[in-house]
């Protein structure tokens, strides 16, 4: 291998190790549906903090419970697990990921690939921009208000 190749490969291996170390100790949102009462306080405060008003249709989390024909209780658990699939698929590089997802709104074109690929179906494209959970800078508000501790950050 050339010197450049060695340096490049070394860099890549070290970067992988760093990411894996981070992923192992990195905090993520966790959800226990048995404790969820479907109050949607999570979506309310998420939107309040990010949008300056209570507007759950723009929240970066979408947890709900509903009755299926009145006969059974179902849960929709759309929340960001920091899987990174949005980051890996973003065609413009607008999405970055370390211990949280960040969206560069200058670079985001609203193409919607992230929303399509998101396995939790929690990404929203609103007015041409991707709305993705940013963990409220490592101290998620949704976790703070979840009344029965269904949402945790650990």
């Amino acid at each position, binding site marked *: 291998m050339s010197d450049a190749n060695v340096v490049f490969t070394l860099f890549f291996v070290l970067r992988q190790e760093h990411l894996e170390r981070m992923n192992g100790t990195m905090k993520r949102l966790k959800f226990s549906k*048995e404790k969820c*009462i*479907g*109050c*949607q*306080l999570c979506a*309310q*405060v998420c*939107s*309040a*903090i990010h*949008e*300056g*008003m*209570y*507007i*759950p*249709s*723009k929240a970066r989390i979408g947890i*709900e*419970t*509903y*009755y299926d*024909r*009145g*006969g*059974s*209780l179902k849960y929709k658990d759309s929340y960001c697990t920091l899987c990174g699939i949005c980051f890996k698929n973003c065609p413009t590089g607008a999405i970055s990921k370390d211990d949280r997802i960040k969206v560069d709104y200058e670079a985001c074109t609203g193409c919607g690939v992230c929303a399509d690929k998101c396995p939790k179906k929690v990404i929203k494209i609103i007015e041409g921009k991707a709305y993705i959970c940013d963990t409220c800078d490592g101290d998620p*508000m949704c976790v*703070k*208000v979840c*009344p*029965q501790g269904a949402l945790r950050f650990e």
Partner: protein
Amino acid sequence: MLGYQNNILRINLTKKEAKTEPLRMDWAEKYIGSKGLSIKYLYEELKPGIDPLSPENKLIFMTGPLTGTSVPCSGKLAIAGKSPATGTICDCSIGGHSALKIKYAGYDAVILEGKLDKPGYLFIENDKITFEDAAELWGKGSHEAEAMLIDKYGHDYSVISIGPAGETLCTMACINSDYYRQAGRGGMGAVMGSKNLKAVVVNGTGGVKIPNIKEAVKRIAEIEKEDTLQEDNTFVYDGGTTAFLEACQDGGILPKLNFSDTTDEDWTKYNGEVLLESLEGKRGCGSCGLGCGNFLKMGDVVCEGPEYESISVAGPNAGNSDPVAIVKANQVADDMGLDTISAGDTIIWAMEMTEKGIRDFGVRFGEMDKYIEYLKLIARKEGIGAELALGVKKLSEKYGGTDFAMQVKGLEYPQYEPRGSWGMSLAYAVSDRGACHMRAYAPNEEVFAASIPPYTPEGKGEMVFNLAQWNAVKFSLCICDFWGTLNMELMAELMTLATGKEWTAADMAEVGTRVINIARAFNQREGFTAKDDTAPKRLFNEALKNGPGAGQKIPEEAFEDMKQQYYKVLGWDENGMLPESLLATL
């Protein structure tokens, strides 16, 4: 003030027109929202003496300034109109998510006027309002109708519907939402049915603004943690209202056999422990912090519930201890769109009439198959149901048995025995919509907290006033009363955070009093006086035999004394009427 949308959606069903108008902010400053504000609108807009089942009646769905915010337990919707059961004002409080959807759609309230020419439903999505045909839904149970609408629009939408009971204009008809939440009392379902309105489907994607929202959200989260989620309130998450069963059994106010006695030695056969063995999940309303809803599955019997009222009326009060029958009765009543309390009380009165040989209604205590069948017959006004749909007041006027027709003004008794909690006889008598436990919840003081002796008239006027004032303002914000530790100071702080206007605890108390007064003024204008604040003679003539209240009956003079105490506290005259000077302040 912020918190409001400052926007009312006014629907003329006769002309199929939808218009918006600004909220009367001057009225909101006096009555806030939900209960108080809906009554104020009806007081101003309804002429006295109208037939509640005519197109002249109005049905108001009213939110409050806190609706759609992260204030815990703020997700209930007030539904108000003139009651076809009593002729009084009637405001209900329904859970689920429809209050938030209406608010996020951009409205403080929806006012329904007139009558559709044929069965239909209203579709609301933000500023898109359409009038749809309900031919395929009419005649169906509330659950099936809701399922069909959710199949069509998706479960982002909230459905408010009536069952067959509302369609037949049964005065015990309720309004349903989210399958298992009700605007239960006073026949509001019949008002909706009289307008040929099967359902309202609503979704909203807008928002609610409050001042300094980022700081406010953090302060509200603190209050949630420190106050809402303390043990005094979280019993609601653990067992829901089944917890009241034990408290009432121990306190000697659990009614048995149509209020002929109290305490039931079989109560452990249908109590919370037994019922919750079939728990599938917990559920709360929008913005709830407590999650009182118990979703139960017992074979093919499913229900979110039953609440304490429904357990008692289909349990010991019906001479039944089979828990499956209790849950089945609740499921059927919900689907039929029938108030479990009024329909249940009517059937158990019919049981006593049959047992006593006064008139054979074909049902005796403990016959739960008949009870459940009778719920369906009442809802569809078929067979014996056509008679029973009249309710205990009219039935007893026809056939006798008035002494044990447990009702006030035509609204049947909630499940607390007043001989075990004398102040409750007053609370039932003076409540604005007939016998109701959600105005002054006397057992809290007289039995559970034991802060005042139960078997005396002493101080009960003041006690009932304080409880009624507290609930009146709380239900005008509106906050659910399962946040039991919520006091005037906290309410004032929450109102200040949400609206940006400085509210004090004294302001809250003043609003509470004003709401009691305007409801009474509405009824006064309809001709109600002290003679209508009644109690069934059973309370005066028959002593309890069992429980802590054994030997207790309420002397009629004591009952009349409690009434006069209450009138005096409020500044009403001896005939229970507001003087002109007080009416002018409303």
